[in-house]
């Protein structure tokens, strides 16, 4: 069982620029966690060498990502590609902000 899971695991990552004016503030961080929690995969967010869990609002907040920050989002697990896709939409639509 465990082995099956391992075999079907994939790991993917993608780079994004935080484009909304206010950067990753509390509400945006909450949005990211909400999306990340819909997937089984582990989600990681990396910015200038620090990596934090994409499922922890406090982790994401304390990564401090103002507008213009470059971050790498990676997902590993059975639904990694779906997870990454969903998160990409969020980043690309500027979290629904301007």
């Amino acid at each position, binding site marked *: 069982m465990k082995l099956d899971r391992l075999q079907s695991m994939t790991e993917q990552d993608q780079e994004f620029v935080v484009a909304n004016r206010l950067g990753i503030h509390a509400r945006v961080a909450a949005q990211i966690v909400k999306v990340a929690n819909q997937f089984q995969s582990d989600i990681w967010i990396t910015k200038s060498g620090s990596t934090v869990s994409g499922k922890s609002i*406090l982790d994401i907040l304390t990564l401090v990502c103002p507008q213009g920050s470059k971050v790498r989002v990676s997902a590993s697990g059975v639904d990694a590609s779906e997870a990454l896709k969903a998160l990409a939409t969020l980043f690309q639509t500027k979290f629904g*902000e301007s």
Partner: protein
Amino acid sequence: MRKTSITLQGIGVSPGIAIGKAQQLNLGLTPIPHYTLLGDEAVQEECERFEAAVAKAEKSLEVIKEELDPALQDHVHLLEVHQMILRDRLIFDETLKLIREKKYNALWALKRSLLKAHELFRSIDDEYIRGRVADVDAAGELILRNLAGQDHDLRNEIKERAIVVARDLSPADTAQLQLERTLGLVTDMGGRTSHTSIIARSLNIPSVVGAEVVTRFVDTGDILIVDGTTGRIVVNPTDDEIRHYLQRQEDEENYLKEIKRKAHLPAVTQDGVAITVEANIEMLEEVVAAKDNGAEGIGLYRTEFFFMNRTDVPDEETLFGEYRELAELMAPHQVTMRTLDLGAEKLAVSFPRHQESNPALGLRSIRLCLHYRDLFKSQLRAILRAGAATKNLRLMFPLVSGVGELLQAKAVLKEAKEELSRERMAFHEDMPLGVMIEVPSAVAVADLLAREVDFFSIGTNDLIQYSLAIDRVNENVAYLYEPLHPAVLRFIRQTVRAGHAAGIPVGICGEMAGEPSYVPVLLGLELDSLSMNPQAIPRVKNLICRSRARGNQKFVNRLLKIPTAQEISTLLQDVLMKRFPEEFRILEPGLPTSKALQRQGMLKSLENIPS
């Protein structure tokens, strides 16, 4: 034994006198025991207890969210953030780990996790992010209270009509209070624009905030007098004090009731000069209070409030919806929309990246708008569109320092109009445009600015601070905040004359406009309109109706020859007492000599102040 009476001074944020029993809300004071668990079974039980406490906290936030007053819907996302923090790995997983591995009791384990989170946040440079530790604490406190077995449902805590006393009230706390059972509110923390103050004002609950130490002096059941007009709190008053305040309460209520009955009539002096009296508001809900108190329009709509207490930025459609509703509610009366006037203290929430050593002279207000043109333009578009049908909106730029800056802002306005035309959107093409006169340089070039706009509105709060170079919340220099300083009076006169020479009206929308004591001065300075807190309108209108404009002009000419604020104030006080004895017998005059100095009761260097 009878306790001694103590008088404390805070900031009066919602007028009126409340006398009643105190009800302490002990928030944030859960005692934390510390012990080691014995045996795996105890550990397992403690883990379950913790998980149940989190689940209960989660559910209570859900209930608050559902029952939230529609006026406070903006806070929903804040409550969602708190819900998410409850389950965050740094709090939830960390606490369980400490219970399992270190065999800590749940309360102690949670407290340790919270402290660790504190350290993490403290190490962060960004002021906005660092401030979010307050959310971690708020969420943590919910679990702590559940674990300690305290019922934190505030609705059950207030058994009878009482004066609520608390260190601070969070949005979630305020939303839960049964306000119809609340006679008054007193908090250690907070300021005029804090959440509690705004709610209290809109519900007419006498309130004093920023009283610093009040929770230390008050026990539940103590008798308390709260004077929301002067900011005074009397703990365990003597019989004489109670009698005094009961009398004042009655006199004040009767007097205010009487003048409020006449407040819907226009403010016309006995020699026939009409003054437009309008209201300053910051939320849509205040329109009711404005109309009730006889406002003939909204002289200042502080649009930034809608941007505060939220972490996102409202988009054009959201703003448009809000503004159109305001326009429709007030029509046919005019509403002056001041574009975003985000000050330093409000910057942190919405614009986390600007840390300035001197924010009062920094990137704020119109400068901030010109820096973030898209944000500015989306607000301008929303305002222009919202005035399309009713045509009663006016546009006003704050903190304009000169013609160059005004022209830049006008260029953005022109762009916004052109875009709207191209997109074939309905908007008010000829919406009147005004500037706030609140920077001394704007006074100096008022004649030049007057050619570019349709009206002036003097923001006395900032004008006084900038021209006298004092920060009035700095207690060492606050005594220098003198609205009657000859320089301030000259600046107002100069602005009015420049405006009138160019044929445009000049008003005041600072706190000076709402202080009844200044009515003779402002009439004499020939202001066309006064805009103030809704609650101040009946008193100001009453005094205008009982005055003669021409007589006051002569009086002001006399005042302008006096060299110090102190002497001006003394003369004014004499005149007030002679002309309006009953007004100032019942309600204290708010002149700097009396009230403002009393407010500075904590001032250490009292002997330095000229008496």
